[in-house]
């Protein structure tokens, strides 16, 4: 046993992120850690990698109990976590990043850059990656940056490498390459923990699995003994609920709510589509497909050329004119782009009203509280007192407050950008249901998402993007895991190019 976690508990405020979980990694195994967003996978791995200590429970490395005070102390034990978000300093060179905080010094006490560059070069060669150690990181593609992260783990001959969704930004060829590197290292006795939402990859490369749900241990075993469906059911625990969504009726009405013609902007080209009243339209695509940029352009965050027409009128650029036209957005990355963390729940909710409809000079706290109570009921926001800070709420409830913000502004086109990021399974389903009931009220929804599961649950149609363009618009009966994957990896466009 390389490493063992026993009865680990982690609390974030009132939320128990990890609840008495056991987990272990053997040498020479690739262990899939599975669970929906917010199931506690990343938290558990942060504990193993020393990022923060557990509230209770114990960690053993090669049978010895250890206590990690920092990521550094875990690295000294040969454990390395490759984060989902890349942790590279863009302004430094590749080799400087590789050796950051572990620089090689010469006899004089100054840095020995020759040796660092040489070692880095060797690691890249064993990986079969063509990256110049002297290049600045800012000049690399996302996939190359990912490889630099992996090289960092290899450089210090780690025994346990934890990979948190390493392939989201990689193309098919890079993924194959990565898997080959993993297999080579596995043969040398390195243990991997592999976190990914992509089922085919799990079945291709992993040996064993552990499933977490809502912070709790659900199951473990050998990958060979299970199939995809069983894993999904273990992850969601809601086989029944799935069928609720499968049989849902569509609320699409014939009127066109929004038409987008030849939208061009940074990262997107020639986007044209129409959104019907009451429709739920999803937009998906891999990282870098232009999905984020399209979301930003449609809310006026990012400037664009082309037409966005609502109610027969073309909307001018800028967030304010989009809001005035009734288009609102629940942004991705709730913590950085959504909530106003110093403000109360009430002010976070009312901000949409203030910015669109407030007529009087003074704000009436009494009316604000009334508004809050109404939304609290509609959206079943679980909050104690409206004057409490927004940060006292769980992620899902924060998201509901932001949604309520725009309902107060009477928006009738709602853009949900990655709305269930980091939200527990139960609340996720509540948000899907809210989307459905909003569409039944005649509101139109565009949901930007990378989770195929949720796209299949709620969408009437789905736009699949590839390299900044619309690759294909799928109708509801065409949406499946396979078709979404097929078109988001650029199948049609690549075929055209080869023809």
């Amino acid at each position, binding site marked *: 046993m390389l490493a063992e976690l026993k009865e680990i508990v982690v*609390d*974030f*405020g*009132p939320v128990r992120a990890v609840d008495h979980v056991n987990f272990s990694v053997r040498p020479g195994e690739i262990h899939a850690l599975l669970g929906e967003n917010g199931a506690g996978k990343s938290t558990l791995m942060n504990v193993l990698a020393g990022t923060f200590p557990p509230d209770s429970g114990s960690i053993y490395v090669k049978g010895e109990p250890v206590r990690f005070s920092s990521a550094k102390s875990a690295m000294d034990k040969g454990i390395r976590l490759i984060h989902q978000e890349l942790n590279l300093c863009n302004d430094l060179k590749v080799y400087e990043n590789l050796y950051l905080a572990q620089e090689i010094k010469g006899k004089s006490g100054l840095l020995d850059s020759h040796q660092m560059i040489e070692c880095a070069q060797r690691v890249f060669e064993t990986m079969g990656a063509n990256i110049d150690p002297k290049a600045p990181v800012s000049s690399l593609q996302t996939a190359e940056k990912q490889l630099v992260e992996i090289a960092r783990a290899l450089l210090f001959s780690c025994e346990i490498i934890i990979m948190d969704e390493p392939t989201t930004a990689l193309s098919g060829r890079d993924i194959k390459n990565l898997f080959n590197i993993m297999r080579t290292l596995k043969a040398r006795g390195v243990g991997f923990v592999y976190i990914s939402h992509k089922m085919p990859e799990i079945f291709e490369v992993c040996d064993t699995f552990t499933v977490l749900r809502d912070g709790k241990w659900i199951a473990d075993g050998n990958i060979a003994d299970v199939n995809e469906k069983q894993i999904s059911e273990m992850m969601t625990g809601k086989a029944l609920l799935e069928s609720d969504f499968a049989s849902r009726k569509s609320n699409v009405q014939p009127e066109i709510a929004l038409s987008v013609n030849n939208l061009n902007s940074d990262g997107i080209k020639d986007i044209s589509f129409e959104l019907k009243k009451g429709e739920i339209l999803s937009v998906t695509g891999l990282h870098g497909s232009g999905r984020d940029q399209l979301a930003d352009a449609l*809310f006026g*965050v990012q400037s664009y050329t082309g037409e966005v027409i609502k109610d027969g009128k073309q909307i001018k650029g800028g*967030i*304010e004119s989009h*809001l005035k036209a009734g288009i609102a*957005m629940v*942004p991705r990355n709730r913590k*950085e*782009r*959504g*909530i*106003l*963390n*110093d*403000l109360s729940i009430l*002010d976070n909710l*009312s*901000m*949409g009203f*203030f*910015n*669109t409809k*407030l007529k009087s*000079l*003074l*704000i009436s*706290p009494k009316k604000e509280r009334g508004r809050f109570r109404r939304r609290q009921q509609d959206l079943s926001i679980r909050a104690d007192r409206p004057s409490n800070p927004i*940060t006292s709420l769980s992620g899902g409830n924060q998201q509901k407050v932001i949604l309520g*913000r725009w309902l107060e*502004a009477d928006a009738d086109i709602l853009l949900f950008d990655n709305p269930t990021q980091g939200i527990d399974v139960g609340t996720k389903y509540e948000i899907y249901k809210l989307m459905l009931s909003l569409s039944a009220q005649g509101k139109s929804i565009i949901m930007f998402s990378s989770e195929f599961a949720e796209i299949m649950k709620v969408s009437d149609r789905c736009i699949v993007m590839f390299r900044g363009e619309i690759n294909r618009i799928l109708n509801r009966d065409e949406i499946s895991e396979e078709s979404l994957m097929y078109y988001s990896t650029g199948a049609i466009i690549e075929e055209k190019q080869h023809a």
Partner: protein
Amino acid sequence: MPNKRQQTDAGIFIKKLFTQYSYIVSFVLIIIIAMAVNPNFFRWRNISNIFTQSATTTGLIALGMTMIICAGQIDISVGSQVALISGFGIELLNRTESIWLMLLFCVAMGGVIGTFNGLLVAKGRMPAMIATLAVQTSARAIINHFGQGGPFTVAGGNANAPFYESFRMVSSGGISVFGNRVSYPMIIFIFMSVVFGVIMRRTKLGKHIYAVGSNEVSARMAGVNVDRTKIMVFAITGLLCGLTSWLYSSRLMAVAAANAGNQFEMDAIAAVAIGGASMSGGRGKIIGTFLGVLMFKIINNTLVAANVPTFLTGAISGAIIIVAVLLQSQRDKRK
């Protein structure tokens, strides 16, 4: 991470008092010390003096500074603004002999300089510290150039000039309330504090200021016009610098270009800090700043009464700022 142990109501109250309302604790402490050192502390004359001194120096500016700091910005040009506006204002007064025209001029000029600061920060994407540092240096240089080292003196120091006395009364005049004289600056300071308190708590602008200071990106995504909000806080502070210049000139009747308004930025920022605002933006209260301003003057007042050598008073003020802000950083850490 929250403390899961059960706490008594009294415990919570005391904790809240020391963390969220640390400025009240500091204020009470300072009053007690002041009373111990200076038996005449609660005389009306002394109290009135404290208010008048506050209003004619950094009191009003600190109100604007609260907005700026809550919006996550900083303005270190306010002292030089006061010097520049006072100098030109007195020149204008001497020529036009109208104190009201001077008021208008001062406020307008402050508004222009403040808006310029705001434009540099919002549209020019300059860090507020650097933009206002540049304005601070330039404003001081300009007024030094025009003053050529000498002071700007109302009516050339001629007390018989027709407007001399009426301008002096701007800061030393007042009305009588229950036999106690309340000076105009005191009235203005209290009135403006109330107005600013209402703006911060009960208007869209106030909410926008907190939103921008809390997280600019989120504020933008919530439909807040971030640039306009930033320009507004600097412009409002400029207006207050203008108003202060009028009062300040009236109190001194002669303004030296080189050292007028010296240290005003630091005193104003310190008052906001003592008042419990978060220096990184998003949180802060006008009532805190109001008490912060008074605390500052009370400390000075008390040190003088206690015969502390003048040059050392700064060191003691500094120590008090450290203690006040330490209390606050403990609060932030707990979050």
